[in-house]
């Protein structure tokens, strides 16, 4: 069976075209390196089901990062098997640079079709390409496309069967001269006026003006996230649970005589004869309310804001602005992307460390993220539980984590041998995000949360009940009392939250509520729960990304810094 590979430079729109071709939705954003792993899907070609593979972008056939290595290894394997056709996706507004990869691919003598993507944008930037002429020179089909609008996609599909080896012959050492000659024969440039976006451009990467712009962007994003999240909870999710779900559960509770094993497992302990969605700890109460009533609203609002930032093209610019500061931590500015993704969920955050070039950088970035960046599920719970104590409590939690992030980075940069490479990144043009694309991406992420997170929350709540019933939490609590109570000043029952934190951090934060902690203890516990260990989903991805030796090192750092910071907070506050 033939396979179709989508190959091209980073940020030329391969993932968007892939989604159009296959109907399989993958995350597409406006910055180079969104796709760090390949995705597969299928399309019908002449009635035959054909596999389509979206490959991470690469600028040349010499790898520069882990993601590029993946791309090149896949390409070489496919060439050897000789069973594939290759769609070379080109950014039509950057013909010259993109042809570099094209010509290298041509040397491999593989059947190709070229998609000239961002065709709609060429008009705005004053680029005119004669596709027929380009087709003649290269000897392969050339199809203008626009992934976001879907323009040209059906033509691309119908041209797939005409994929063939290029007839172009050139000397390897003359590659750039050849490219220059192709460009001058096929492309004409016309003057264009400065657009609105080019004006913001000047501001957003200006060394001084850039900082207030960045602060404004981040504060706006944060305010928006809180506002949307809070509103969803107050006006949608809480009323739904209270008005519709509570009567159902109460009815069931009465049927189960308000006590007993099954009652405790499904509904949990009633507080003053009523359900308390956070404290009851039943599968149908806390098990559903935590993921749906408390976390989901923030997942929705966070990913809406993130999607907007991703698609606008602002993130690499933010990377340039913070590059200097990040270098002090042993990573370059682009590492801000895994950190921001980690704020949503540490799993994609850990995967995104692949855009960093060296093992040293990946280690530092992944460790810092796993320790000091709480995921949105945990943050939402902290908002819900520490929030009522006022901004001071929240400030203490997130302020401490920020200080930990910086301090640990400074230390790691000194302790770990070697140097981290400098930033070297293409800055995509600003683009106005397509609303439909934003919503599609949001839905993908929300669906992922519902599918991956909710079952784990239910398993978590189930385990809590079993562990309490068997007296394991009390037992481990006694065992760890010197550490938990002696050093960190938390009640020994808090160990239950630490155990469940391996499964889900949101459930773990929720478990702190019945303990009746003081504000100080609540702050310490929130910080400790973030730092001590990643949840199991993140842990398994980190093992894959860092390999076992580095992961053991990272784990040691986590445990040590948790004890120091937990103890320190207990002492200071």
């Amino acid at each position, binding site marked *: 069976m033939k396979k179709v590979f989508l190959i091209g430079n980073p940020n030329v729109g391969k993932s968007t075209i892939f989604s159009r071709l296959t109907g399989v939705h993958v995350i597409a954003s406006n910055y180079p390196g969104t796709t760090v792993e390949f995705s597969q899907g299928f399309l019908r070609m002449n009635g035959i089901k054909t596999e389509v593979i979206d490959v991470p972008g690469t600028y040349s056939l010499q790898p520069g990062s882990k993601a590029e290595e993946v791309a090149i290894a896949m390409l070489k394997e496919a060439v050897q098997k000789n069973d594939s056709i290759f769609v070379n996706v080109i950014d039509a507004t*950057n013909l010259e640079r993109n042809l570099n*990869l094209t010509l290298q691919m041509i040397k491999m003598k593989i059947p190709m079709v070229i998609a000239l993507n961002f065709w709609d944008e060429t008009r705005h930037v004053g680029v005119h390409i004669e596709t027929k002429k380009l087709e003649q020179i290269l000897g392969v089909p050339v199809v203008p496309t626009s992934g976001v609008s879907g323009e040209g996609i059906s033509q691309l599909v119908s041209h797939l069967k005409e994929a063939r080896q290029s007839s172009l012959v050139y000397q390897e050492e003359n590659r750039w001269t050849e490219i220059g000659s192709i460009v001058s024969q096929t492309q004409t440039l016309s003057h264009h006026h400065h657009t609105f976006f080019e004006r913001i451009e000047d501001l957003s990467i200006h060394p001084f003006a850039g900082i207030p712009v960045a602060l404004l962007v981040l504060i706006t994003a944060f305010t928006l996230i809180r506002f949307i999240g809070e509103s969803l909870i107050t006006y949608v999710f809480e009323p739904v649970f209270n008005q519709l779900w509570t009567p159902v559960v109460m009815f069931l509770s009465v049927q189960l005589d308000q006590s007993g094993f099954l009652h405790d497992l499904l509904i949990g302990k009633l507080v003053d004869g009523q359900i308390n969605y956070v404290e009851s700890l039943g599968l149908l109460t806390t098990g559903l309310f935590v993921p749906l009533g408390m976390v989901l609203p923030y997942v929705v609002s966070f990913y809406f804001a993130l999607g907007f930032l991703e698609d606008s093209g602002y993130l690499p610019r933010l990377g340039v602005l913070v*590059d200097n500061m990040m270098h002090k931590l042993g990573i370059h500015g682009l590492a801000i992307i895994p950190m921001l993704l980690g704020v949503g969920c540490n799993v994609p955050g850990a995967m995104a460390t692949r855009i960093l070039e060296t093992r040293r950088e990946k280690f530092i970035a992944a460790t810092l993220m796993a320790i000091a960046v709480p995921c949105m599920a945990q943050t939402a719970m902290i908002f819900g539980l520490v929030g009522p104590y006022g901004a001071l409590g929240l400030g203490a939690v997130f302020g401490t984590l920020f200080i930990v992030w910086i301090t640990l980075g400074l230390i790691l940069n000194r302790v770990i041998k070697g140097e981290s490479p400098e930033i*070297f*990144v293409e800055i995509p*043009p600003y683009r106005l995000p397509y609303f439909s694309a934003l919503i599609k991406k949001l839905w993908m992420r929300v669906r992922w949360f519902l599918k991956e997170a909710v079952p784990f929350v239910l398993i978590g709540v189930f385990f809590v009940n079993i562990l309490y019933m068997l007296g394991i939490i009390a037992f481990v609590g006694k065992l760890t009392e010197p550490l938990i109570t002696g050093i960190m000043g938390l009640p020994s029952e808090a160990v239950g939250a630490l155990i469940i934190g391996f499964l889900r951090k949101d459930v773990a934060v929720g478990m702190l509520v019945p303990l009746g902690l003081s504000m100080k203890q609540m702050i310490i516990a929130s910080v400790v729960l973030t730092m001590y260990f990643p949840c199991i989903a993140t842990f398994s991805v980190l093992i894959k990304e860092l390999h076992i030796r580095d992961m053991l090192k990272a784990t040691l750092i986590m445990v040590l810094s948790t004890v120091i910071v937990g103890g320190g907070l207990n002492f200071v506050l």
Partner: protein
Amino acid sequence: MECKDLTKITKNVDVMIVEIKGGHHFQEKVKAMGLRVGVKIKKLSAQVLKGPVTIKIGNTKLALGHKMAQKILVENNQI
């Protein structure tokens, strides 16, 4: 005509690359992004304290670290 590295030139002026220093790996890396001798570029901004330099080459914008920028020598070319 005098040639300077990218960190020392003024912003928003068209210049031409005359030399790229550094090892083979570095040369290949920047070449793949279109930076090579004879190409016209323009500096857009530079972050303070030896921060990254942003340049424009054709329709591509690139950010590169200070030390990398020092390896790229350009000449003012107002012909």
